[in-house]
């Protein structure tokens, strides 16, 4: 039976840029850094593609799901150019400032618009850094979560999936019946580069857009106003200053040890 695998991807400010919050509404200043496909979601797309490819030519498909502003279409095209088949873009100004709870509500509704077997997420968005959206989506759908996977195996005939879930001291082998919500860690695979052919093909792949009304969401539930937590204040800290820098002339270790003694750390 063909599988439908949804890869959830987010557009984020480049993680190489220094980030800051906006004074006006304490949301992330997204203009100050180049918007890119969340690096950690590339692993989700790659894994989704590998699962599809393991099915052979049976009509299995990879669907990209992205919630984000208009310009997130760049991110969606990038995901499509890696080889995904079609995309759903959740886009609506009313979604600006949505917290993780609201994001999970919107993604859950969007997932409800198509039949699917596996929803694959990244391990975290590099801007929000919460690592909670996949678990929240699983909760809303009352589906098993196979999260922080460093390995995914799908048993198509048995309609189940097994992952190696990264833990502090190794990994847990966790198994569940499809459909499942998966998140993958960066060690799982090596994301492919889009080929020229796929970059051209991506421009013609189907891209459906959904707004808050189409999702059947109450606008009061999403966006800044619908958030269940609020920033009260924030302050910029002066950047950490470097201290002493010496060049080793055979006495580097002694000087470090002296310093540690001075700091009462030795």
């Amino acid at each position: 039976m063909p599988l439908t695998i949804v890869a959830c991807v987010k557009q984020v400010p480049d993680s190489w840029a220094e980030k800051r919050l906006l004074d006006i509404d304490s949301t992330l200043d997204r203009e100050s850094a180049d918007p890119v496909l969340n690096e950690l979601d590339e692993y989700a797309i790659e894994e989704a593609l590998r699962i599809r490819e393991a099915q052979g030519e049976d009509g299995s498909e990879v669907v990209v799901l992205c919630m984000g502003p208009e310009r997130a279409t760049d991110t969606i095209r990038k995901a499509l150019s890696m080889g995904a088949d079609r995309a759903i873009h959740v886009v609506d100004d009313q979604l600006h400032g949505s917290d993780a709870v609201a994001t999970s509500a919107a993604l859950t509704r969007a997932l409800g618009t198509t039949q699917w077997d596996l929803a694959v997420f990244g391990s975290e968005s590099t801007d929000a850094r919460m690592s909670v959206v996949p678990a929240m989506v699983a909760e809303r759908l009352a589906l098993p979560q196979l999260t922080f996977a460093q390995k995914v195996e799908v048993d198509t005939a048995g309609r189940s999936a097994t992952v190696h879930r990264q833990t502090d001291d190794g990994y847990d082998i966790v198994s569940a019946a499809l459909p499942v919500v998966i998140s993958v860690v960066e060690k799982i695979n090596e994301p492919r580069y889009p080929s020229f052919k796929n970059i051209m093909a991506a421009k013609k792949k189907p891209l459906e857009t959904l707004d808050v009304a189409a999702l059947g969401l109450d606008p009061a539930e999403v966006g800044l106003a619908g958030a269940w937590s609020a920033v009260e204040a924030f302050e910029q800290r002066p950047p950490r200053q470097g201290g002493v820098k010496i060049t080793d002339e055979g006495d580097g270790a002694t000087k470090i040890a002296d310093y540690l003694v001075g700091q009462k750390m030795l």
Partner: protein
Amino acid sequence: MSEILVLVEHDGGAAKKVSHELLTLASRHGEPGAVVVGPGADDAGLAADLARFGAARIYTAPDAALVSAIVAPKVAVLAQLMAERSPAAVLIASTAEGKEIAGRLAVRTGSGVITDAVDIDAGLTAVQSVFGGSTVVRSRVTTGTPIVTVRPNATAQQESAGAGEVVAVSVELAATDTAAAVVEHVVQAKGGRPELAEAAIVVSGGRGVGSAEGFDLVERLADALGGAVGASRAATDAGFYPHQYQVGQTGKTVSPQLYIALGISGAIQHRAGMQTSKTIVAVNKDAEAPIFDLADFGVVGDLFAIAPQLTEQVESRKG
């Protein structure tokens, strides 16, 4: 005084340091109720330990079924206690699983969630340190019961005797709560060192360490100092050291008293995980490496010469 629930992390008999820290925070803002889930939860020594750090009540749910699946069973325990006890807040350790528990619990109970807090202020305002420590944010949950995950090592643990009344809890799990079944627990960690996120001293190696064998130098220095070993992503990607020791944006966030970086350039994503360390020492042969911009004490030099000498110095000065 209103109750603040703390989800305890334990290994079947001993609580992790972070749980003492959460109880310390809870004592400051209410009456701590420790929630202990899984085999060993009813251990008397564990209860005494939790009481010593202020637990007024200790809710024990030792049923093994509660750890036979990931995340959701613990959510069920906490959701039930939230319904019964109407706590003022729920505190959970900001670990990978802790954050997932918090997220699901928030959705299940209609509550807002804040992750990665480094402190909790009056009025249950959560303090977060974001963008690698460059911005301090104060936020509050505005809907439902505040669910806050707190980073290990951000609070100094403090003893304050609590009544420690033990309350046995039994929870009916829904089929969906046990759907993600744990088939096997595979342990790969190297034992005998303090846990990375909780360690007072962390010695990390980067690409400059060059090989898995090279990490012997890092381990020896860590052991001389009684510290934990960390690694940059370049080092874990190259297979020099296991991934669970990665420090940085997609690894652990550490905040030790002393962080020693050996052969690490100090990329922004690495800094995000160690910038709040109290004292930073760096050894790098490139004088321009960005790690020196934040090192309190930097040595431009070869780690293969300096690390072994430093290990010797530490051992001899310790006497």
